[in-house]
């Protein structure tokens, strides 16, 4: 059980009290962590391109994208930490939780290449990175658009800020999806391989969790209601990019229920090693 969950069950009255003080209805902490973990994990993945981008401008674009996401994660962790109390901070939530605590979509933790046996290493594949950014951004423009009107002042403010950022991420990744899909035989092949690999993972967007249902009663956002809009954005872009969408089906990932692929542990190990080696370091 994560620190967040145990705190919630032990100190439910405190949580409720502080939420009332802030004049906001109480959101499930797991929901805030889910949104924050999504942003942090994809932010870390995009940051892996820093210094390795195919051209200088894209190197900077992916780093910008990463910093936007990490900025969103910080605000959401701060909000969660305020509810959790007990000395929790954005840093303890980002760097001192482990794989079974993270609630991000499995899609976001995958490495930047099509599937390989086990945890074999491979070179980064730009198409995989951009297709993933596209699929996630297409979802988040819809999510943040709804949440900016949520009757929870902090979440609504975070959503309004994030919406501007993710609109650009969608524009940037959609643009590349079209250029690659409708480009050369090589770029089309890579983009199609990335779509075939990643699309099944998006089925996790539409499965329900208890904390999402509880959050929906506060925010009014029912994830299922976004599915047809998301399909429209994705299908229109794939059509324009001359790419085929694979049929749904098969395994449905469970990352947001904290049951992850083998890849998240390696990513967290790299991301968390420094603060764990020097827990109170400042700079």
């Amino acid at each position, binding site marked *: 059980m994560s620190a967040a969950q145990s705190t919630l069950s032990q100190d439910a009255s405190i949580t409720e009290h502080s939420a009332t003080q802030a004049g906001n209805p109480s959101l499930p902490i797991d929901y805030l962590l889910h949104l924050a973990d999504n942003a942090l994990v994809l932010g870390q993945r995009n940051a892996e391109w820093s210094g390795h981008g195919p*051209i200088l*401008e894209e190197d900077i*674009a992916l780093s*910008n994208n990463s910093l936007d996401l990490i900025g969103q994660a910080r605000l959401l962790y701060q909000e969660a930490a305020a509810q959790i109390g007990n000395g929790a901070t954005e840093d303890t939530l980002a760097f001192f939780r482990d794989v079974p605590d993270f609630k991000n979509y499995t899609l976001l933790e995958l490495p930047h290449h099509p599937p390989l046996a086990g945890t074999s290493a491979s070179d980064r594949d730009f198409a995989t990175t951009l297709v993933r950014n596209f699929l996630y951004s297409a979802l988040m423009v819809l999510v943040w658009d709804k949440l900016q009107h949520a009757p929870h002042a902090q979440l609504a403010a975070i959503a309004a800020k994030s919406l501007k950022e993710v609109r650009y991420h969608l524009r940037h990744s959609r*643009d590349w999806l079209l250029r690659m899909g409708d480009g050369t035989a090589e770029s089309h092949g890579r983009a199609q391989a990335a779509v075939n690999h990643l699309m099944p993972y998006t089925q996790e967007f539409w499965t329900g969790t208890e904390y999402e249902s509880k959050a929906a009663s506060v925010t009014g956002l029912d994830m299922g209601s976004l599915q047809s809009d998301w399909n429209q954005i994705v299908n229109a872009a794939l059509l324009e990019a001359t790419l085929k969408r694979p049929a749904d089906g098969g395994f449905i990932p469970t990352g947001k229920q904290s049951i992850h692929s083998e890849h998240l542990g390696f990513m967290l190990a790299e991301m968390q090693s420094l603060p764990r080696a020097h827990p109170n370091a400042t700079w």
Partner: protein
Amino acid sequence: MSADQKSSTASAALKEWPLWEVFVRSKQGLEHKHCGSLHASDSQHALQMARDVYTRRQEGVSIWVVQSSSIAASEPNDKSEFFEPSSDKVYRHPTFYEIPSEVGHM
């Protein structure tokens, strides 16, 4: 991707993508100023790249890009006839006129 492959990707991009000059307006009412150049496949691509490279520290509210080949430039060899004749005509600077105090700041 190996270092060799990567540098060949980058140099292919530099060869196939034309060069664009980037102009950024720092705030409303001011002029667009030249701030650099980049390689991009078309104008929209160039605009997005310019946004990512040249406006990440709040440098701008508007961007222009223009393909470098569309710019006609003066030749360095023309320097003597283009620019030097003005060097002894200091009277063209408006420093010899008294501005009436009623005019205030000009």
